[in-house]
């Protein structure tokens, strides 16, 4: 007897349910997915740091700022990037054959460790960035014209090594403030780049804990 394809499609669909991957597999898949996305995103950010360091070196080369400063910053940021790459690699070596829950917990610990280390580094990184930016600003084009204008307005301006003392005080205060608030700034930075992924990671871990109980 002939049957229409429409009827067969609607009425005769019976599928061996054993062949459908269960939700546990999906859980594993989801864990691997978040793990991959996170490490990829971290690698991308670290690579951006290296590109920034290179760009900075090129910029210093063409500016009037001392080249040694550019080289030092280039080396400094690259060391930081290499350290981060190393930590990411360590995270990638986490045994994925363990249960999803176990390796996500290990990954979260590794991630927290990395964030903690960077937070400590940034206590120095931010003020250094501030100092470097100030030096660049000081050596940048038009410095002499600005100084002339300043002298006209404030003829009794105090200078230390030819640099206005207020400028030095402002740089110092800003550097100290950056150091004091480095943890908050870094947290904001992390949230900016990784908030969604961190939230997803926490959500999966929470769901897995719920399923376990």
């Amino acid at each position, binding site marked *: 007897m*002939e*049957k*229409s*394809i*429409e009827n*067969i*499609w*609607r009425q*005769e*669909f*019976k*599928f*061996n349910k054993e*062949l*459908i*991957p269960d*939700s546990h*597999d*999906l*859980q594993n*898949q*989801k864990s691997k*997915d978040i793990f991959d996305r996170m490490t990829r995103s971290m690698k991308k950010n670290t690579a951006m740091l290296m590109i920034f360091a290179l760009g900075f070196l090129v910029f210093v080369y063409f500016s009037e700022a001392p080249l040694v400063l550019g080289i030092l910053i280039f080396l400094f940021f690259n060391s930081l990037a290499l350290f981060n790459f190393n930590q990411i690699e360590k995270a990638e070596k986490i045994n994925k054959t363990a249960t999803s829950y176990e390796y996500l917990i290990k990954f979260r610990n590794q991630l927290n460790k990395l964030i903690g280390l960077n937070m400590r580094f940034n206590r120095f990184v931010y003020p250094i960035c501030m100092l470097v930016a100030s030096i660049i600003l000081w050596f940048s084009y038009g410095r002499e014209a600005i100084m002339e204008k300043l002298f006209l307005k404030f003829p009794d301006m105090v200078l230390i090594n030819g640099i206005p003392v207020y400028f030095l005080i402002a740089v110092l205060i800003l550097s100290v403030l950056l150091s004091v608030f480095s943890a908050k700034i870094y947290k904001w930075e992390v949230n900016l780049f990784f908030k969604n992924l961190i939230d997803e990671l926490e959500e999966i871990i929470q*769901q897995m804990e*719920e*399923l376990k109980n």
Partner: protein
Amino acid sequence: MSKDFYKSYIYPHLGIIIKICRAYTNTQEDFEDYFQEVCLQIWRSKANFNEQSAWSTWVYRLTLNVCLTFTRKKKRNVTVIDNIEHNEIDDDYESAFTSESFRMLNEAIKKLSKLDRAIILLYLEEKSYKEIAEIIGLSSGNIGTRINRIKNRLKKILNGKIY
């Protein structure tokens, strides 16, 4: 993926997800890859669902996108690894469908082009021409003609066993 999410958002559409994934795969292993990726994408893109279309439409579109993307990737792999034939169908693969007629129909659908497969799958799921056009990204004008052509082709493949 929480059980609640699976139950509420995936389970009601399990049938069509299976049908579409089976129509684009030839082995159980591929099917599992496609199926898991579809579920993953549904979970991942849930936040982007803007409720302008029905959830089922969203699921169809996502499932088709995943299947078409995976099929394209597989095809690329075949050209790279010449000696591996990905189009071979596992002997037991089709036996997952317990109805003989359904199995025959599914095998016939697999002989269609990727796009025709997508259109006929949506048509068989009783989607309107407008919805099919929206999901596939074609104009709704010629969907009807195309469906008739696909049905004739299926009839030919099935050699009159199904009309």
